[in-house]
């Protein structure tokens, strides 16, 4: 039975007195019990489509034409009042940001009962009983107690469960999920996806699932709608689209998605296929890119028993009541021209480890040797040298560039600060660096806001290279980028490694990208490295239970490999806060394969 029909939807936004069309005549439909994934990169109009269906676009600045029909009701023709009766009753919606989507001053339970009382006319007591049942249904542990607590006491995954309970409260015919798992860790994402699939089966509703992640699409969708710049470019059953994409754009999108396990037993990283539209337009499947040559040299960074802790304060006098064991007894080496990936979920200590390497956060104990220098005992002058040779790139390129400086000035600054050349030499170096990073020398005169996200990350990489470092610490450097751009930046990093012999410490939660870029992988959990070794060995035969759980949760961008539904898990990521007198017992690393170590468990 047809639940939703979108027919020739066109949306324009007013910007500076002009109307800009952002959706160009998009049509699609969703049947009951069906999951349709709407995929596309940022700016493709997928969220605007969802908000148009809900009629939640701001009135004076948007214009909408076409027909949207839910069952027999034409939504586009409804009065505002009638539309309010549809929202939350016939259509439920979940949003991307669970942290901000719940009202902080109202209890979680109340926010669910609100929908019940509004649409089903339940009494206060009945609504409470029904909402408690929903809390159980979405597997919120200890529901009766959590019901009257405020959202800030819930973790991201639990808040998304509350959102789902709210959206499902009135058994809607259609659920719109707008990137509901993008902000969540991969194990939590797996839980939420299977929860949505389960509830869908139970209620038999239609699901419109908006995502940019082809892995998630392969995991849950029946049909796929691919969007590009406001147009629908392709539509079809998920297996067909993945097996034989018709459109060049879909092909490019799929080629840019790393597939976990694609690299098999190889030892070195591998570039992504050439993703330019022209290359994708050629019908023949592009030749798979060759494996990178192995040019690893002697170890340049040796970390031994690194430990970083943060104080937790409390009580009347602000005394220390506990410590966050953010990094605990971490040891590893990085060789010249090698990429070591640090992977793990939020709060596992991977970023703190990266920052501790440069002593941006002062470690509590441990030894760091970098290019023969003892970093922990370095004098301020030595530290300057260390920080010149070891550079850091962050996740948010916009936040790491000064908005009031041209990017040329931003790249020039470290050269001048370290006195590495005259103004003219610095100028020439900036042009050279921009070209290396895949931009042109003319870009030096522009400001950060004039670039796209991917270009900005290239600028930041160029700045990182300005001082001729031997090691780059890249902290989630490609995580915020669209898949195709992400692939290009990964290729750039691999080029730089090949040409300059750079070593990388690549910090990421995205295991599929890690597989592409790394020689070796270290898995972190609660501040400790639980498993470390050659990439192929760790990712294809993980030995630590946490690594196994983590890899199992990664969605694979291949509908044929859709994982059998696992039991519904509700475990949370544990916290690394420990009492003051807590001393972790030293645990041994056991060598299970050549160079592959696993913490005893």
């Amino acid at each position, binding site marked *: 039975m047809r639940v939703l029909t979108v027919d020739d939807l066109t949306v324009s936004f007013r910007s500076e007195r002009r109307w800009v069309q952002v959706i160009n005549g998009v049509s699609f439909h969703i049947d009951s019990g069906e999951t349709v994934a709407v995929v596309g990169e940022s700016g493709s109009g997928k969220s605007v489509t969802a908000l148009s269906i809900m009629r*939640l676009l701001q009135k004076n600045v948007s214009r909408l034409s076409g027909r949207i029909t839910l069952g027999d009701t034409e939504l586009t023709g409804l009065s505002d009042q009638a539309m309010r009766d549809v929202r939350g009753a016939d259509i439920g919606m979940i949003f991307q940001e669970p942290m901000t989507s719940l009202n902080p001053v109202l209890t979680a339970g109340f926010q669910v009962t609100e929908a019940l009382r509004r649409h089903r006319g339940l009494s206060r007591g009945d609504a409470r009983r029904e909402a408690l049942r929903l809390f159980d249904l979405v597997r919120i542990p200890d529901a009766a107690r959590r019901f009257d607590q405020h959202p800030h006491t819930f973790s991201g995954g639990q808040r998304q469960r509350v959102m789902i309970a709210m959206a499902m409260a009135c058994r809607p015919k259609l659920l719109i999920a707008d990137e509901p798992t993008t902000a969540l860790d991969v194990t939590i994402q797996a839980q939420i996806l299977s929860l949505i699939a389960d509830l869908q089966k139970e209620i038999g509703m239609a699901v419109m699932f908006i995502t940019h992640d082809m892995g998630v699409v392969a995991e849950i969708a029946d049909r796929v709608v691919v969007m590009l710049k406001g147009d629908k470019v392709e539509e079809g059953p998920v297996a067909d689209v993945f097996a034989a994409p018709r459109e060049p754009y879909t092909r490019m999108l799929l080629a840019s998605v790393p597939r976990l396990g694609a690299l098999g037993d190889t030892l070195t990283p591998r570039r992504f296929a050439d993703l330019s539209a022209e290359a994708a337009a050629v019908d023949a499947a592009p030749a798979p890119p060759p494996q990178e040559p192995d040019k690893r040299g002697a170890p340049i960074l040796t970390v031994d028993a690194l430990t970083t802790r943060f104080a937790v304060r409390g009580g009347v006098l602000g005394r220390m009541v506990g410590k966050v064991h953010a990094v605990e007894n971490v040891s590893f080496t990085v060789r010249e021209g090698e990429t070591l990936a640090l992977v793990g979920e939020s709060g596992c200590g991977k970023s703190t480890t990266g920052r501790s390497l440069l002593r941006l956060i002062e470690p509590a104990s441990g030894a760091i040797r970098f290019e023969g220098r003892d970093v922990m005992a370095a004098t301020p002058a030595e530290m300057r040298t260390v920080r010149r040779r070891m550079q850091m790139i962050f996740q948010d390129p916009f936040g790491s560039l000064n908005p009031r400086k041209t990017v040329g000035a931003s790249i020039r600054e470290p050269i001048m600060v370290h006195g590495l050349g005259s103004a003219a030499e610095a100028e020439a170096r900036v042009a050279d660096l921009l070209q290396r990073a895949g931009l042109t020398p003319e870009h030096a005169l522009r400001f950060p806001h004039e670039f796209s996200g991917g270009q900005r990350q290239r600028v930041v990489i160029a700045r990182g290279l300005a001082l001729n470092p031997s090691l780059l610490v890249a902290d989630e450097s490609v995580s915020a980028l669209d898949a195709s751009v992400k692939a290009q930046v990964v290729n750039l990093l691999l080029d730089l490694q090949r040409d300059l012999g750079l070593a990388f410490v690549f910090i990421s939660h995205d295991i599929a990208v890690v597989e592409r870029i790394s020689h070796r992988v270290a898995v972190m959990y609660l501040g400790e490295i639980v498993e470390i070794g050659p990439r192929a060995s760790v990712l294809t035969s993980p030995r630590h239970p946490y690594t196994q759980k983590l890899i199992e949760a990664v969605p694979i961008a291949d509908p044929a490999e859709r994982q059998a539904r696992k039991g519904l898990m509700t475990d949370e990521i544990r916290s690394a806060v420990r009492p003051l007198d807590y001393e972790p017992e030293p645990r041994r690393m056991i060598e299970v394969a050549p160079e592959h170590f696993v913490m005893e468990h």
Partner: protein
Amino acid sequence: MTAFILKRLGFACVTLFGVLTVVFFIVRVLPGDPALIILGDQASQASIESLRARLGLDQPMIVQYFEFLGGVIVGDWGNSLVSGRPVIDEVLNVLPATIELTLVSLVIGTVLGIPLGIWSALRRNKFTDYVIRITSLLGLSLPAFVSGILLLIAFAIQLRWFPVISSGRGTTFADRASDLALPAINLGLIMAAYITRVARSAMLEVLNQDYVRTAEAKGLAFAVIVWRHCLRNALIPVVTVVGLYLGYLIGNSVLTEIVFNRPGLGKLIVGALNQRDYTMLQGMMVIYTLIVVLVNLVTDLVYGLIDPRIKYQ
């Protein structure tokens, strides 16, 4: 929560001690000998000396300081150098009038300011919004003594609705209310102008939050979204401003009390300043510090009522 209040009161004692110390020494270095001022130019040297001894001004500074501190603690703030009556009596005598004025103007300010601010935000960039914004800007720009005189001319002299001089000593409720009306409206309107602007910008920000979109996606009526989901969140910055402004309001009441010739702390302090009444000034500083510290404490506690994320520890 109790621990939080105790801790804050502890801080308040430290603040108070610091203020007392600074006040004591500042008052001592001011030019002019109080004995000379009390007795006048023609007084003999001997009578000046004897008055200095009686007031304790001949003691070493450090002795005077500790006597002063000890006195504050036991409630003996000394006698006014001018009237000879205990400072604490003089202060307590006018304190109710000031508190009455401040609280009533606070009520006027919030009752007018919050709805106007929200209305303005909901009608953003429409005619209503412009009118409210321009009016509130006017309210902010007009000094209290100018608006006070305008109010007097209009309502006391032309319309004769209220008395020109508010004695603040009326015994019946109607008397007191009619005395209080103009001064309270004067201060209340200024306060309303502030609150309107803060409430407007707070509301605009809240309306853009993700949880408001969630509430809309639930199909709630617009009025429910505004009152239930937005208002409490928008109040958080308003409370901050009101807390800060209350201290300012007590200062601002000086001008209002003079224009309306109304008793209160403001008039008391101006009198003490003119007559170099050291002991009175010291006492006034103590009371002002106490009020500001208490207002801040109450503000912090109100935060906790509004925002469940705030924990007192």
